């Protein structure tokens, strides 16, 4: 079905809120989903997978004390690390490193539930940055995936777009890139796709089902006075 970028952004944000993610992280997830669809790359289903992982209790947040040192791991251990919960803080850490000139080793995220969500979180975060971010992970038989996000554009260094569809968890490494990446590999710029975004109806239903949990049951009181319009039927 045809869905607008605005719908994607707001629905992912609401769905994240509905599964218990704080608003600020939900906003970042919404932006990331929008950017992914904007460049016409990847699959919207990965965001729903990431929401499912939180909802199903398979994914969790991280230990902040270790994360401050650049090592994001699931807390409690034994679960997967939620990309939606960890991605924004990992991006923050990389960005603040650039600004404060504190030298960090590459940031690592262990056992990330849906790696490609992190990639698109980074992509959205780099739109206004003077520097880029490089992200790598290894999944199953497909080997190493490496991409550079540079001011909202994506350059694939290793791997293929199909790697982004693999739902397997992975360990991720991120680090700053100070120079614009060379025009080798596949480059996907912003604004390639602005017209139609097609999402299969079943996937869209999954995410809207989450978002709809934020709706409040109607009562006679709320119907009559909650909106402040007076009587329901107009005669003038």
């Amino acid at each position, binding site marked *: 079905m045809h869905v607008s970028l605005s719908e994607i952004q707001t629905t992912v944000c609401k769905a994240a809120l509905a599964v218990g993610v704080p608003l600020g992280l939900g906003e970042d997830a919404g932006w990331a989903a929008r950017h992914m669809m904007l460049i016409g790359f990847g699959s919207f289903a990965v965001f729903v997978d990431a929401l499912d992982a939180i909802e199903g209790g398979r994914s969790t947040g991280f230990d902040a004390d270790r994360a401050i040192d650049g090592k994001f791991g699931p807390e409690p251990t034994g679960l997967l690390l939620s990309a939606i919960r960890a991605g924004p803080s990992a991006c923050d850490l990389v960005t603040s490193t650039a600004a404060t000139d504190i030298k960090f080793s590459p940031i690592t995220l262990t056992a990330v539930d849906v790696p490609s969500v992190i990639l698109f979180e980074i992509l959205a975060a780099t739109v206004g940055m003077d520097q880029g971010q490089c992200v790598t992970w290894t999944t199953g038989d497909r080997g190493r995936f490496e991409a550079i996000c540079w001011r909202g554009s994506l350059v694939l260094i290793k791997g293929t777009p199909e790697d982004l569809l693999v739902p397997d968890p992975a360990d991720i490494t991120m680090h700053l890139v100070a120079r614009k990446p060379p025009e080798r590999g596949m480059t996907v710029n912003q604004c390639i796709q602005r017209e139609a975004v097609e999402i299969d109806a079943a996937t869209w239903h999954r995410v809207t089902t989450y978002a709809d949990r934020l709706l409040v049951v109607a009562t006679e009181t709320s*119907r009559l006075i909650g909106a402040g319009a007076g009587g329901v039927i107009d*005669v003038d």
Partner: protein
Amino acid sequence: MTAQAAVVATEVQLRPPAEVMRLDRMGASFQTRISFTRRLIRRMHRERWRIERTRFDLDDKGYGTALYVVTTPECCYSLVCFSHYLEPEQRTDRVIAEAWDATFSLFDGVPTVADIERLAEQTPKQEAGRFQASELVLGRANKSLRLFGRVVDSLAQGNQPDANAINAVGYLMRSTAVYANGKFGMADRTRYADRPELAPPYQAEMLTVYLIRGFTLDLVEHLASCRDPDRAVALDRRLKRHLGIGNATGLGMAPFLVSHPVLIHNWFQARETALAKIRSIEVATSDRQARFRVLLAQTERHVAEWSTGDERQTARIAALREDLRLVTKWAAEGSEIFHRPAPWDALYRRAQGAVSIEGQELLVSLLFEPYPELIDELGEALQVDHEEIFDPSMTVAEMCAIVESHYSWALAVDFADPQESQYFWYYSEEKIEPRRGTRRGEPGVEKEMKIAVARDVHAFRVALGEAHGDETMAAFLMRHAELRHVARRVQIGAHYAYAEIQGNVISESCSPIDILRGKLAFFGASKFDPKSDLWTRITMYQGAPLDDELDAGDADDWCFPVKPVIVTCTSL
């Protein structure tokens, strides 16, 4: 005659956000030259837009399909109109409505027959329909039962309708929702934001509403003609112009403004910049003074003709009439105020100390009118064309300083007082209608919309106080992810002075209608007619040129319109 150039000498500062962004002042706003409807009409006039009714397949009851094609220098847009029978028990202005007298889609280009057939299926469903990127705006409207039938009756009998009745209502139909920016699969704003005619905010929506107004005028004449082809007359042009298009607006606008801080900053900054420019003018030349006085006199009549059933607004209108008498006296020809330097500043300052807030804001609007060359360009850059970047390297100490300096209004709220968190805002499962409930007593608090900025800033300040001052936001937010949206917002507030509505929207003392009016004034609304403190009716485009008058004369002479004096008959 060419107007004498304005000499700007002194430098008057912009009014501070603590004054401008207060709810009571927002709730006293009026349309100005930079309002979106004014801006659109000016462009239509300047660029000689052409509007043609290319299809009008309505039966003798007025039901069917109509098509209006707008040709601009670069693009075409079409309003596809569907007119329906509406059961009386389904007639409501509320979002929860399921059927309407008329539904509309603004199409990007000229629709094919297949497009119109598809829209005939989807548009009448409104929120339940699905649309494509070729559709820019979706809307609906209901007839005014007070006026619509009465106008048809008069015209069918060969008479013009009573100008008083037309003035009392101001419109034939009232729109009850206008959607755009990707809703229900329609085009995202990014699709058309780089087109000059649609780049400023809400231009697609304002165009739609303008075209709907034209449709309503055609509809009454069509019905009158069908009823009695021999006797029916056309609606007098002056009465047509005095008919705008109504709108009923509820709570949805308030969360929108809260969640678009940069956008509202741009609007208010432009208006305040405009005011500062006018107040800085060294000498008010005689021609500008004359223009101001003419408009002031017209506005006195406009306000005298403005009536509402709302007691609070009625009292405010009464005060406004007194205010205008005072301003008229101060601004009389030969008045000492015009012998001083910066006379408009002097006039404004005098009003500040002597008239109501509504009177002051009306004066602000009037002061802009004689100076189009200083003001109108400010209406060209009200949109937001970039995303705000969060700076995670900012330290806790720096963030504390911003909160203290820019959010003192929020920190001043005493949330230990239950009245300050009396309400919560939510979306109802009934068609996602925005509603406000009482926190202690109504279900759904756990699903509250996150729009209580003052409360969030309080929590943020407390958490910041417990952190090390040199800690970065990146580190702080790892432990306080629940405050991430507040940190982002506060950084925006530091850069955009008018980004925040400086009031507590969950307080028992908050009247959301103040927020609504603030936004509607930027749209160009007039004749505010509150139905409660959560809901208002308004009129748009009253007095605006008709579609065949866009290239004639002064297309920008219609602010604060007054009732025409008529009575002629014209055969259809």
